[in-house]
């Protein structure tokens, strides 16, 4: 694997914005508005705010796919790749989703339990086959590898990382890679049962952090090989590169991170080695930063050890919420945009950083210099995944 993997288009949708430009304006403007869920109906004694995208028709059959379609259309438009080209080349679709869209099927299941007239084939296909990558590939009549990654909260990062491996190995010319997830009752209520959801707007790396806020959305990157760019004379389309990717497992606990962050340290070292970079060449790190006690403590400690305690860190789940399978993809896109803009967004509304986390976030938008950034994802099951993202020179 020696060839470059270029990013030629990005697209997204989240509570922070319905496209990349809107999202970055929201982040740089310091606006965030987690609210009581509107689309889900539930009975709980108290509410936990979420970053829910407004105006989504609840009748849409697969909202995650709907989000992925919106983000893909934006990314493809920016890349200048039309549907005809997608059908001519070896195109992979690698999509991350925390549950393969299973958790949004509660209503179907309820109908089935009431012996409603759902055909057996429909039940099995709709309920269990959460193959979002295939659904998206079908829309574009593309043929090539379709992979739906379910690596919990690292799914989006891993989808982009594995997509870059498909490009670098020559298996694909173009990969549509990213992640998507929607707010579903099961996820909302399940996270509350795990007691890591906050009743207040989340505060990553704060001394008074009390948990995460869930969110929803999609982030999509168009990844492309040098040969594909050359063939279509698309060099001017290049926004950046996936310079490095690594993932490894803690093998420590089902839900808790390994206290010393061994897995994250290894993943960071491997990703930077692959990129041929030293820590001093990383302009900033977009941290996983969920706002949960243990995640932020371990992650902060590792980032300070690896990059030094004056490392510039952003934690953008404060604006998007934790979008699970989409999170790593949205944050990869944010990282690239920050590199291109030379600026990372401030954390909103707080400055009581936890000294135990050992990293300090910017209280105002901060200028950055450099070519490369790291984006980290820590997930259920002890997964640690890292992308090294470069901007065009």
């Amino acid at each position, binding site marked *: 694997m020696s060839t470059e993997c270029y990013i030629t288009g990005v697209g997204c949708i989240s509570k922070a914005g319905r496209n990349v430009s809107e999202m970055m304006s929201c982040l740089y403007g310091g606006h965030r508005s987690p609210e009581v869920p509107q689309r889900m109906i539930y009975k709980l004694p108290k509410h936990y705010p979420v970053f829910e995208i407004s105006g989504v028709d609840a009748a849409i059959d697969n909202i995650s796919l709907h989000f992925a379609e919106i983000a893909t259309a934006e990314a493809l438009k920016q890349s200048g790749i039309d549907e005809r080209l997608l059908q001519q080349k070896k195109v992979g679709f690698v999509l991350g989703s925390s549950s393969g869209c299973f958790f949004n099927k509660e209503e179907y299941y309820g109908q089935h339990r009431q012996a409603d007239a759902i055909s057996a084939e429909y039940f099995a296909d709709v309920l269990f086959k959460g193959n979002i990558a295939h659904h998206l590939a079908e829309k574009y009549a593309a*043929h090539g590898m379709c992979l739906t990654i379910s690596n919990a909260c690292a799914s989006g990062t891993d989808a982009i990382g594995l997509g870059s491996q498909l490009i670098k190995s020559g298996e694909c010319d173009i990969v549509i890679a990213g992640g998507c997830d929607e707010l579903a009752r099961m996820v909302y209520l399940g996270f509350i049962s795990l007691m890591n959801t906050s009743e207040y707007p989340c505060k990553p790396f704060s001394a008074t952090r009390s948990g995460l806020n869930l969110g929803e959305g999609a982030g999509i990157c168009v990844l492309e090989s040098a040969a594909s760019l050359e063939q279509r004379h698309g060099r001017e389309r290049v926004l950046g590169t996936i310079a490095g990717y690594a993932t490894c497992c803690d093998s420590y606990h089902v839900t808790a991170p390994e206290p010393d962050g061994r897995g994250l340290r290894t993943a960071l070292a491997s990703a930077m080695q692959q990129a041929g970079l030293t820590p001093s060449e990383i302009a900033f790190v977009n941290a996983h930063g969920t706002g949960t006690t243990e995640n932020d403590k371990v992650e902060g400690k590792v980032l300070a050890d690896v990059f030094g305690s004056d490392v510039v860190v952003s934690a953008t789940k404060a604006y998007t919420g934790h979008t699970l399978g989409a999170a790593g993809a949205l944050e990869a896109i944010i990282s690239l945009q920050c590199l291109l803009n030379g600026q990372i967004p401030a954390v909103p509304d707080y400055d009581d950083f936890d000294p135990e986390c050992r990293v300090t976030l910017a209280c105002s938008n901060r200028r950055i210099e450099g070519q490369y950034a790291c984006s980290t994802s820590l997930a259920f099951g002890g997964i640690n995944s890292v992308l090294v993202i470069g901007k065009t020179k």
Partner: protein
Amino acid sequence: MKLAVNGIGIVSTLGTVDSIAELLQQSQISVASLASSAKVSLNFPSEMNIPGGLVRRMSHFAKMAVLSAGYALVDSELDCRAKRVGIIEGSVYGPITSGLKAFDELIDFGDDKISPTTFSGSVFNAAATYLSLAFGIQGPILTQTAGADTLYNSLTMASLWLESGMVDYVILGVGDEFADYFSDITATNGSNSKSLPTSEGWTTLIVSRADAEKTAYGQLEFDYSEQFVAQTENQINSFWNEDFGGEWNSLRGAYPAGVAFDVALLLLARKLQRFPRQSADGSEYSVSDLNGEALSCCNHAESGKAFFYYRCSAR
């Protein structure tokens, strides 16, 4: 692409690799004599040294994956802690029993009564997580679902990891669990649909680079074609839907990820030089000797527009 196969672990209604190897020594296998249970029985041998507390926390889905990986590791004699090992787990349906149980808890007991254990067990990558915990694996870990493409995609990603030098070995597991709800659907809707599973199982291969010096089961070559390649004598159709010829479905029961079992059975058959062929009426399999031939199987891609081919050979 090609991989070397160093170990196989099977959890199935037919039993483990050892019991299947015994079956292949018979001259005929009567379908009526095979286990009729849809679910596999799961007992962790003490020599796997997996803590009882960890096993108790696993769902049935995770237990299938971990037990099958345990068998494969014993078979391969791979020391996971001494080598760079990755995990790739694939399933068409995922942990459906845990997922449906979580739905049941919400519907039956209320929105504030979902158990955190049930919820965390319903997360798709729970099986790979328990596998990493059971065997102390700290390498890359991937859980993916891709319908009929699941096995092919898992092999492709394993090949990329091995070729790029990320790892030396991959524990590659593919399987599906049977849920009681499949029986309920059939009872409720009066359907005898062939698109519903009748069984379950998990297959794990320990794979390394194709140029590995030692390989217990030879090489596995895999490719896809947009055209169906005519069947040869030693090729089976491994389609999930029996209408298209799931030739070993009667042996193992039908489930979407069953092609992984079929590939493992081919690897075993090639090693033992014993190959089971289905009779015309489907009531039995006659097992005959081979003469060193390569064996292959074919299954339909999820898109419906391509076919995957898996070929097992000595080198």
